[in-house]
């Protein structure tokens, strides 16, 4: 039977649901994006595992923190049946993304994930979330639909924020995949802390959600959008 809400899920199948949603093999198009890494590599700012780790740390602390907070907030709204509030979250997230290229990428990834989760996890919220929602909101709602709590949604979002660029680095720079994943493992405690913080503000005023900015990610995204030939979509 298709899951229709948090009440159905037991702890065990919810854990499996989190693995399913955060797996890179989920057919939602995330593998085509480098999270700003392709332009950053071209600018010479990331060139080895150490500089990649610094990049990932900065991304987790800024756009990853914002994505985690909004995924957790969306998850909490859907669990409470307050799906209409997703529009407020969407506008608040727009205000936290000054780069039009990043706004477009977030909505594109949101659309692609929405198409996948409509089938994977049927839920009434998919008819109310709009046609082009931001990715963290779809991810948060998908976690709620799968019976997962806001903290799991936050963890999935911030995990997604670093894993994409890390695997892109292996292709862009030919880095050792083991060393790259070791860097991801070192980030684990930071990601857990970010998810816990996102959880603690999930039900507060959307205007007070984190708004951490990363000037170089904004600039990299706009640079990348002007390229004619590129390996990754963003």
């Amino acid at each position, binding site marked *: 039977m298709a899951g229709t809400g948090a009440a159905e899920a037991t702890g065990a199948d919810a854990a499996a649901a989190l693995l399913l949603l955060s797996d890179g093999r989920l057919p939602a198009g995330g593998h085509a994006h480098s999270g*700003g890494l392709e332009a950053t590599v071209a600018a010479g700012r990331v060139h080895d595992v150490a500089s990649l780790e610094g990049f990932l740390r900065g991304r987790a602390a*800024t756009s990853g923190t914002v994505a985690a907070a909004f995924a957790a907030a969306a998850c909490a709204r859907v669990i409470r049946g307050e799906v209409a509030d997703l529009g407020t979250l969407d506008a608040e997230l727009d205000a936290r993304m*000054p780069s039009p290229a990043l706004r477009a990428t977030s909505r594109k990834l949101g659309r692609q994930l929405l198409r996948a989760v409509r089938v994977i996890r049927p839920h009434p919220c998919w008819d109310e979330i709009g046609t082009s929602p931001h990715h963290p909101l779809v991810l948060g709602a998908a976690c709620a639909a799968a019976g997962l709590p806001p903290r799991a949604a936050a963890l999935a979002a911030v995990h997604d924020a670093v894993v994409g660029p890390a695997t892109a680095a292996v292709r862009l720079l030919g880095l050792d995949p083991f060393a790259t994943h070791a860097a991801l493992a070192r980030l684990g405690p930071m990601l857990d802390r970010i998810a816990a913080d996102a959880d603690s503000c999930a039900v507060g005023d959307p205007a007070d959600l984190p708004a*951490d900015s990363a000037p170089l990610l904004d600039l990299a995204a706009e640079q990348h959008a002007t390229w004619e030939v590129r390996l990754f979509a963003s």
Partner: protein
Amino acid sequence: MRARAELATDYIQRTDGRGRSRITTLRSESPLMLRPTFPKGPEPWTDGAANVARVCLAAGAAGPVGGDELVLRVDVGRDSTLVLRDVSATLLLPGPGGEQSSTRVTVHVCSGATLVWIPEPVIAAHGCRHRSDIRVDLDPGARLLLREELLLGRHRESPGTVYQHLRVRLDGRPLLNQQLSVGPGAPGWGSPAVTGGRRALGTLLVVDPRWSDDPPPAAALDGDSAVLPLNGPAALVSAVATDNLSLRRSLDVGLDRLTG
């Protein structure tokens, strides 16, 4: 030191039909000293106009120093125009016991009113711990030009911790909400995703109702600066640079694009 300063303007129509903006409230409290001034250097939008209200913020003491709590309220009344500038750059300094200093600015720009707010750079000295919180509420039809420049440390100095938060709402809806965190208290701040070792960061926000919901297009001016149209009648110029001179140059290029 705790201080609370207040500034307000309105617009008066004269019998000959030529109105002017007038300062109606000017309340200073050291170290926040507000002074009516003549035009100081080039001004976007208002260049030289005589019927504009001009105020400079002067520091009546060093700092902000750790422990200081400064509050400024600015009200730009209907149809009036205010140009708000600084006399000099702001140097954030550590307090004797490592306390945090804070600056809180609340701005309301009424319908038909214009605020040109072009402060001088903020310099984060080594060991400082500062939180800056700017909240701007714009009524429909309000115009805003706001520049922010942050220099990470004085010459060959590593910066202290600064949290710089800017929230702008237009007609009650969020337009821009950005927090920049740098220094030892901000994990990942030197990252190639955030500052990448650049020592000067700046933004220039322009909100112009004439753009309606169609602001100027995005433009990567060079690798280190870009024009970013927001979701609304507004655009942000964002720039990073190795020093304050090249930062100002980049922001000026963006300014010309948005107001020229």
